[in-house]
């Protein structure tokens, strides 16, 4: 179990009807249970990769796939239906992710659970648990459409988590949240231990804090992969990739870590500056 990993080998993806390959020859791997941040300019392929993991491609949105995606020893596509049951997905536009037939926030949170056929008591407990994790308890009776943008994103995330998924796929989940909401989300994410998380986001500071690996996608190619430390230092001069504030500050103030690299998080910066 500990040696299980997710591996991409020469993965290329082309949407049906389009000439460009959205992902080109991606080879990279990550251990199950890790948190992986996907960064890079928009239209770089992050959403496509998440769609692939979610099973949206090629079943729902038709696409040509070349190369291999494996989980442990199995081809990812053989596992897909089973995996989907234990995968939580949060797409970019949270409002359009809602079921569209839920009277209340409670019903929305319970939707996937009801579809799974769980009994009402279990549903009640899970909904309460996930609502309290994301500060939605006061809104349980409200209509989902009455929520603000940030609240709706919390609702989308909470709904995805209601099933206790082993895999979590998040596409820009904090875009409409205020700084407080964002901070709350990322500190919650940091505490998650057993889940494999793929998160595409522009919040590089938070990703540097929280993620075990960063994969950088530029124009469909993997520009870099590795620990936040390694990746952001490797790309410190790349204008297309946003860099953590700590690194920018360190560059300007010429503060380096003992091994010669720049710090990427606030705590690393403090440590390096202290020396």
């Amino acid at each position, binding site marked *: 179990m500990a040696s299980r990993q997710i591996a991409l080998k020469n993965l290329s993806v082309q949407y049906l009807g389009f000439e460009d390959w959205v992902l080109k020859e991606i080879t990279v791997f990550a251990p199950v249970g890790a948190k992986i941040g996907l960064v890079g300019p928009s239209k770089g392929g992050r959403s496509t990769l998440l769609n692939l993991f*979610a*099973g*949206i491609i090629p079943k*729902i*949105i038709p696409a040509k796939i070349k190369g291999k995606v494996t989980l442990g020893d199995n081809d990812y596509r053989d596992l897909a239906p089973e995996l*989907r*049951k234990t*995968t939580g*997905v949060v*797409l970019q*536009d949270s*409002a*359009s*992710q*809602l*079921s*569209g*037939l839920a*009277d209340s926030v409670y019903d929305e949170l319970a*939707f*996937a659970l*009801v*579809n*799974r*056929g*769980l*009994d*009402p008591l279990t549903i009640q407990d899970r909904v309460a648990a996930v609502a309290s994790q994301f500060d939605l308890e006061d809104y349980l009776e409200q*209509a989902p*459409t009455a929520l603000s943008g940030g609240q709706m994103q919390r609702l989308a995330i909470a*709904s995805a988590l209601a099933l206790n998924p082993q895999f979590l796929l998040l596409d820009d989940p904090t875009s409409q949240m205020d700084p407080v909401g964002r901070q709350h989300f990322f500190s919650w994410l940091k505490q998650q231990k057993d889940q494999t998380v793929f998160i595409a986001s522009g919040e590089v500071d938070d990703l540097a804090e929280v993620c075990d690996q960063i994969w950088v996608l530029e124009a469909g190619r993997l520009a870099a992969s590795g620990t936040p430390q390694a990746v952001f230092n490797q790309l410190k001069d790349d204008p297309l990739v946003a860099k953590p504030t700590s690194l920018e500050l360190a560059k300007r103030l010429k503060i380096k870590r003992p091994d010669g690299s720049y710090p990427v998080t606030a705590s690393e910066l403090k440590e390096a500056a202290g020396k």
Partner: protein
Amino acid sequence: MIGQAAIDQSKWYAKVDPISKLLLIAGFTLASFVISQPLLELPLLAATALLIMFSRKTKGLWAMTAFSLFLIMTMLLIQGLFWPGNHTLALKAGILLFYQEGLTHALLLGCRILVIIFSTCFFIETTTISENAKYLEAAGLSYKQVYVLMSVCYILPEMKQNLQKIQLAQRARGIVPAKSVWSRVEMIVPVLVPLIIKTFQMAINRSISLQLRGYDSPERRKPELKQEYWLGHKTHLALSLICLFLIGGKAWLLVK
């Protein structure tokens, strides 16, 4: 089921299930068509009106009837004056000659329309969207089918909101109402097109999300109905039989 305002579950009209209410609409409508004299329509009209009165839910009634009432007036006018079967003078207003046959016919049609409106109004005012959705699914429709039928009810208010936002923005910019039909149509295009594309994109996202959340899973648990309805299946059967009887009756009358 216009709004989502909760219906008091203890009231008599809440104990009639949605399908029975729909069958009532069908029954009353068919009955009004079997009848061919305005005078005999009055009991039906009274019955449907009483349904609404006793439920004390008359809020939306005026909005629903206003336009139709106006139309009925024009029918009385046009048919009273020009109906092909006219030959018995009923009243004279200046140079206008109103004939009995036309007026009677218009009155008959008018009563039928009001019967339809009243019986439908009873349904609209005493059910909610979620109740209807739950009942349909409990009655045996698949979630997919219920979704297609009922999610529309949630989309309409959403689109109304979007529309109002746009109209507000337009008014703020001071759009001058143009004269010709074509130029007014041209004005709609730059607003309508992005709205439509956005609507379809939302439909795509929603579709993906539904699939990911297992909306068509065979394990889905049917909703529990909290309300105890009167008789249920027996009323459905009885009302359906009445409707069939009425259809048969009308067919027989037509053939005669």
